[in-house]
Structures are given as C-alpha cells and as structure tokens.
C-alpha cells in the first residue's frame, strides 16, 4: 500500500480511454463498478470535448456481484455494438472488475460480433495511465495491421521513384499536453520539407487509417510515452524505421528535421537555411540578459522534462537545479539527462516528495505540471507548465504547440512571461522606500511571499498551510541557528524577495560553519562574497 495525496497519473484504463477517445470508430466497453464513469469528465470538462468518450461502462453494483456480472458485461457489449456501431471494439476491466476475473475478452468473443474486438489486459494494481495508453495503442495497431504485414523477414521495398516520401505521426492522444497543436505543427513542418503524413494516430484517426500505417516510409514518434511501443512493433513488422528526436526546442527541431530528411532520403539544407524560430534572437537580445543562470527546477513526463531541461540550458541560458519525472518507465532517459546538468534525478510520483525537493532546491522558476504550478504558488515561485497531467488551462483556444519552430516561440513566451513579472517585482522591491510604493503594493504572487518569509524566520510558526514547513525535512527545525541582529535582518530585507531565501540560507550556513552566534550586516556580505565564488 502506498499513501497518496495527489496522483500524476490515473489508472491504466484511463490511458485506454485516451486512445479510444482520440479516435473515431472505436468503442471501449469497460467492465467497471458504478462511479468509474467519473473519467468521462476528464474529457468533457478538461479538454472541453463536445462528445462523450466512446466508452460503455457496465457499472455493476453490489447486488450484481451475487448474480451474474459476466452476463451484464455481455449485455453491455452487445448493446454498445448495436447503438454505436463501431469499426473496432476494445474490451477490458477496471481495477475492481480485474478482481472479479470475468474475462471481458473471452466474453466478448462469445458474442460473435462482426468487427475486430481487442481485449486489453491492463494490470491496474501495477501499472498506470501512460502505460495503459501505450499498451492500448500498440494492441490496436497490432490487431488491425497484422493482416497487412508482409511475411517475416521480407525486406522493405525502396520507395518508388517520383513518389513523395511519407511518414506516420505516432503517439498523440486525447487529454494530451498540446498534442492537437503539435500534430498540426509537425505535419506542416514535414510538408514544407517535402514529406507527407500518411497517418497521424491515434488522435483523429480511424481503424481504417490504422490499417494503412504500413504504407509509410518511416514513423515519427512524437510522444515515446504513448507511441514508442507501437513504433517498435511497426519497425519489426513492416521494417519502418522511426525517429528518435522529439522536436521540442529549436535545436531539437533542427535535429529532428535532419533525422526525418535522412529517413526520407531527401536533403534538408535548403529548408533549414530558411526556417527558424524567433527564439534564438529573442534569447540573444539584450533584454534577455537577466535570464542568465536563472535557477530552474524541471519536472514532468520524461519526454517533456528532458526536452525542457535541454532547452532551458541551451536555448534560454538557465541553470537546471533539479530534474525529475513521474514516469518510472522512462526513468533511464531522465537519469541520463540529469548527468548532463550535474543534478540528482528525481524519479518519483510522490507529490509531497516533489514539493520538498523543489523547496530545497530554491529555484527561481519551476517548469512542471499543473501539480508543480500549485507547489510553486504556495512557495511564491513563478512557474510555467510543460507537461501533463493536464488542466483546462492546458487547452487554450489559440494555437499553441510545444513542438517545432512555432512551439519554440510559444515556449519562449510561456517561460519568460512569469519571469518578466519577476523583474517587475524586483523593481517594486528596489523602489519600495519611495513614497509611491509601500508594502501593500499588489503583487501578482499574492501574499505568499510574506508567508514564505515567515516560514524562513521561524520554522515552527504555524501558517495557514503547514506544508510549507512540513515539506522541508532537509531543513531541520532543530538546527542551531545563529541569531540575526536587527541590522542584519533589516539589510536582508533589502534583498529582492526571490533571492532572499537563498541569501538567508547561505548566510546562516556560513555562520553555522564558522560557529558565529550572531549575524550582522558584515556576516551577510561575508557570506555573499564567499558563495559568489
């Protein structure tokens, strides 16, 4: 058993729903107790989908458990077929139905439906949402494409002369972080490069589309979390190579273009010479100088977190002070990346642990999920969202991809915007002695800043949200701290709020190491000089 407050991922059957809902012509019959229908609202409310997810739940109750839940499943599946007339049916069990072992796959087979039925075996007590999405997409692709597969060992025919190269875009799902816009951006980018998109799936694809997957020259894996498993099977079965680079960031997009061009057997030089993003110039313009070395903490799914860390470092000139993911399946990739930035990788789906690590790292910007946005709000830190789990805000009305050159523009704005306001905040603080300004000058960070300061001064002070204290096990309250003199404290107050916490910590550590009893203005500046080296 694991004590869990908030979760980054739902159960694996929600992953299966993300595939079914992304597609047309697929219906998912889920053996599940009453109440599991809550998952519909993720799609209708968060993503504002105008259609119900194509899911029929058996919604069994206690009285059914004594009777025949298997019969209930068969009735539900038959009714769903009659009403929705899907091209393909997915059948499976949610966590509770898994325990009663009714075998939805076997039961569906007895119905003799005239369409392919794909039985999903998603172990709920072991796996999570992204794994469920990946497995479902893979099972669906395998079930639909197998009849079209060439005999094993057949060498792939070279593309006929004169035909434009084509690829599939794999991995975009319902409820994905900007998947809708990424597919559009990459489709357009590839088209300009001279490569057609044969099928983009699962988002907006039909089972008939999936049947054509084998026709493409290669696959583009947009989201390894959901698309890599299917791509691996397609490579094995149809001999289709796949891209390895996820085009998030200017550098990654250029590398992706080269990779795609090479797989397509075309020359990308001319295309790369004329296309780029505004990001490089915006990053080089003098206004961006103050971004230099900003300490960022990055957390998200593995693909977005690794990409964000690279962009933060190479394209915005930030310093990565923390990197982590909740995707255990991709922990290796994140560990590798963490080495580049010399940080300890954080592989965890324990929200409280993530909060503690962020508090400990004292970043100036958090790049995370909606969960980290809440953490950052409590800690009074600016934050930009880079990854699922998603929130209604992550489905903006405007076009805002993360991938490709336009994606890099979007990301520049998204990440720099909260910091711009940080600079504004700095100016307010600098001029606060001016009679035009005072402590009540409104801050976009609300009143959190003051609370955090309180926490710093006296870790035992109860606050409205004790988590700010409780989450910092690395800052033991018992630590013998040197006493701040009134002047020292006053001087500390003159330091901009977003570095004040760090200054306090450093000064106290400095004093402690030197066994100083009091901290004066001089101690503060001694420490500053010491740590600036």
């Amino acid at each position, binding site marked *: *058993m694991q004590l869990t407050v908030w979760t980054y991922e739902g159960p694996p059957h929600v992953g299966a729903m993300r595939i079914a809902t992304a597609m047309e012509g697929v219906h998912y019959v889920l053996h599940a107790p009453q109440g599991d*229908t809550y998952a519909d*609202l993720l799609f209708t409310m968060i993503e504002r989908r*105008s259609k119900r997810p194509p899911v029929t739940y058996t*919604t069994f109750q*206690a009285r059914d458990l004594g009777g025949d839940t298997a019969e209930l499943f068969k009735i539900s599946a038959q009714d769903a077929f009659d009403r929705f007339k899907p091209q393909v049916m997915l059948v499976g069990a949610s*966590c*509770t139905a898994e325990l009663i072992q009714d075998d939805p796959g076997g039961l569906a087979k007895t119905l003799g439906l005239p369409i392919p039925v794909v039985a999903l075996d998603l172990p709920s007590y072991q796996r999570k949402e992204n794994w469920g999405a990946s497995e479902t997409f893979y099972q669906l692709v395998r079930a639909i494409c197998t009849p079209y597969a060439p005999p094993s060992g057949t060498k792939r025919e070279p593309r006929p002369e004169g035909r434009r190269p084509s690829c599939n875009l794999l991995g975009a799902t319902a409820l994905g972080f900007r998947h809708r816009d990424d597919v559009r951006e990459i489709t357009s980018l590839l088209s300009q490069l001279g490569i057609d998109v044969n099928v983009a799936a699962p988002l907006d694809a039909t089972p008939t589309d999936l049947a054509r997957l084998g026709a493409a020259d290669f696959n583009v894996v947009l989201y390894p979390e959901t698309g890599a498993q299917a791509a691996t099977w397609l490579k094995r079965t149809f001999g289709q190579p796949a891209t390895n680079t996820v085009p998030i960031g200017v550098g990654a997009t250029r590398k992706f273009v080269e990779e795609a061009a090479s797989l397509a057997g075309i020359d990308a030089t001319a295309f790369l010479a004329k296309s780029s993003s505004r990001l490089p110039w915006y990053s080089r313009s003098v206004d961006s100088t103050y971004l230099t070395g900003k300490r960022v903490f990055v957390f998200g799914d593995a693909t977005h977190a690794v990409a964000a860390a690279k962009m933060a470092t190479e394209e915005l000139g930030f310093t990565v002070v923390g990197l982590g993911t909740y995707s255990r399946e991709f922990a290796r990739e994140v560990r590798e990346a963490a080495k580049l930035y010399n940080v300890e990788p954080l592989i965890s789906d324990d929200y409280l642990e993530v909060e503690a690590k962020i508090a400990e790292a004292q970043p100036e910007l958090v790049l995370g999920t909606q*969960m980290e946005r809440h953490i950052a709000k409590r800690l009074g830190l600016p934050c930009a969202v880079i990854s699922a789990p998603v929130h209604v805000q992550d489905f903006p009305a405007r076009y805002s991809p993360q991938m490709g050159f336009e994606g890099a523009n979007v990301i520049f704005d998204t990440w720099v915007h909260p910091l711009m306001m940080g600079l504004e905040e700095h100016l307010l603080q600098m001029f606060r002695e001016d009679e035009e300004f005072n402590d009540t000058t409104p801050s976009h960070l609300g009143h959190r800043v003051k609370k955090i300061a309180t926490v710093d001064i006296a870790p035992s002070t109860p606050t409205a949200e004790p988590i700010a204290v409780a989450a910092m096990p690395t800052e033991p309250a018992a630590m013998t701290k040197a006493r701040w003199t009134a002047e020292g404290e006053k001087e500390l107050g003159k330091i901009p709020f977003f570095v004040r916490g760090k200054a306090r910590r450093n000064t106290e550590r400095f004093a402690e190491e030197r066994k100083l009893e009091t901290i004066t203005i001089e101690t503060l500046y001694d420490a500053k000089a010491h740590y600036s080296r």
Partner: protein
Amino acid sequence: MNALTSIKTAVGIDGCGERPVLRQRGQREVFCGLTGIVWLHRKIQDAFFLVVGSRTCAHLIQSAAGVMIFAEPRFATAIIDERDLAGLADCNEELDRVVAQLLARRPEIKLLFLVGSCPSEVIKLDLSRAAQRLSQTYDPRVRVLNYSGSGIETTFTQGEDACLACLVPSLPPKIDAKPQLLVVGALSDVVEDQFQRMFIDFGLDDVRFFPPRSANDLPAVGPGTKYLLAQPFLTDTARALEERGAVRLEAPFPLGAEGTTLWLKAAADAFGIDDARFQAVTATRHARAAEALGRYRADLAGKRIFFFPDSQLEIPIARFLARELGCELVEVGTPYLHRQHLSVELDLLPADVMLSEGQDVDKQLDRCREARPDITVCGLGLANPLEADGLTTKWSIELLFTPIQGYEQAIDLAGLFARPLDRQSRLRV
C-alpha cells in the same frame, strides 16, 4: 403527524398516493460515494478521510475535487498494490503502517475515517476490524471509524449518509429527556449559522447540528431528540439515529422560501412554538426571499427542466423550481427514491411529473434529446456534449458545493438555473 397535516393544510394539498416511477437498468452515469469526502473534509475540520482503494479511487477524488487548492488536504488514498493482492504483504499490516505514517505526519488529526472502496470490498478487507484495532492503538489521541464509499454500494451523496451513519454510535448518550432539536446533514457554515439564529429566536436553546464542525463536539442523542433532515439522502443515518431513540420530524427540505418555511415550521410545531412567534421570526425573511425570487420568475417561469439522476437533491429542487418559479418538469431523475423521507416533497410535486429512479444513461439521453428541455440538470460528463447538441445545462455538482439551503440562499439557488439561460440569451457567437 400533526406537523405533517399542518404542512399539507398550509400549502393546500392532500397526499396523492403512489406515483408511477420509471425504473431502468443500464449504465449509470453517477459518482460513487467517495466523492462526498470532497465536502465532508471541509465540514469536520479535524477529521481525516483515508480511502483504502485503488489508483482509480485517488484519481476520482482528485478529479471531482477539480483543483488542488490544498497542499495536503484532509483526505488521502492508501493505494492497494499487487503485493497486497498477491498476499506477499498482509493488507492489515500494510494499512497499520500507512496509518502510522499518516498520523505521524498529521498530529492534528482527531478522527480518522477508513473509507472502503470497490476493491477493498471485493477483496473483503475488513475495515471495521481494522478501525477497532487502530482505535485501540491510538486511543485516546485519535478515534478511528470506518464506512464504505464504494461505487458497488453507494451513489455520490450516499457517501455522506454512510459517513454520518458510522459516526452515530459515537454520539454521547443524552442524559436528560429534555427535548432537543438535531439538524442532520452537512450544511455550509453560513447556512448553519442562519438556521441557528432563527432557532434561537424561536426560543429553542438546545439545537445541535450533525455533522459538527469539530470531531470533539459531537451532539448527544437519545430519547427526547427530535431531528430534522437537512439533506434528502440520509437513509442509514436516520435509521441509526432512530435506533438511539431519536424521532424524525417530517418536513420537506429547506430549499426555496416555501421549503425553508415548512422545514422550520415542522420544528416550531414539534417544540410548541406559537404561531405569532413563528411568524415574527420567519415572515420577514420569507417575504424577502420570495420577493427576490420574483425577479427570477420572469426568466424561469414556463421553462422546461429535465433532471438526470445525481445527488438525490433532484426532487426537492424540482419542487422548488415548479412551485416557486413556475418551471415545468419534464423528467425528474433520481439515483434512489426514498419515499418516506420524500413523502412531503412528493406530495408537493405537480401530479403529472415523470419520475425516474436509477438509470440507463443512453436511453435517458434519447428521451432528453427528444424532449429538448430548456434546462438539463446533469453531471459533468454529460454537460458539454449536451451543450454541443444545443441543450442548455446546469452542472448538478454545483448544487452540492454551493450553499443553497435557507431563505438567504433561495435566490442563489434560482440564480444557478437562471444563469445558463441568461448566458444563452447574451451570446451571439
């Protein structure tokens, strides 16, 4: 019984017997009882709700709660994993470990609910024994109780019922036989305070609310306790209170000006408050609420309303909309119809209203689309798809999260229905 007769006389109707009810079996698009934790943890401020369940349970509560306003809310899930199921780890030992971890982290917890879920029920994890065991371990610092919020046993608001019912045996016995009024069902604090002020003005000096705001402030119960239900979904709680000797006061629910007056009247009559005093306390407030509602009547009169089953509040709210705002009821669906607790409400409904209990959501959607009501009251999973079909909707979950009971909130309740129509009339896109 006198109180009931006087209510029926007051509104000028006779009981109209059994009504036909449409019952269908199929997919039920409803939350399970775990959802109640979302408001219960705000109400009893030193209680903690530990769901013993799956990742789905944790995901459900998180999704229903909508946003993570609280860093560490007063609820969490002990997620069962494969080691527990494979018997590699003894579930009870694991639960004890998780509870120890939780209580070490949250020393302010005084009352811990172990909340059963579908998986814990199916694997027959005995949470009542676990609660007894843990109560002994942590006595007297923490009391540990258990109830089931599982979807196989409870629908949405039945979770509150199960929670309160499990709390009843902990209520201290009432020492004297002095009459006492107990208001039963979670109300927001502002509503509770308004009712309390009116009860004091009636001259009632022993009025208690259940659940209390603090776990250490449990009301006594016993012979002499007369209780008023503030919520229509408290079947098991009512039974448990009656086993302790409490007597239910028959009344409609305090929704709308009329509902509130009749609800208060049931208490006033039971405690022998004379009519002059009753009028002195309620007349002005009733008139103010009724007048305010009058402004919405123009917007809502004649509007056709369709209720999908959700919270069991459907029937009292339908009664309010029909009688005080002149709405026409197309279908009133409820997940469960408690004829006894709703007897006065049912009598107040128009004679020809179509009631449905339980659900086959696809067939009900067919009926709704066919009827094309002006407002459809439904859950969050259905609202946007219906809007996309051109039907105006009201999310039913808001009816639970918004204070809607009492005189001062009657207008807010009407506003919840008027706003979607207002929006429709404004938009030109």
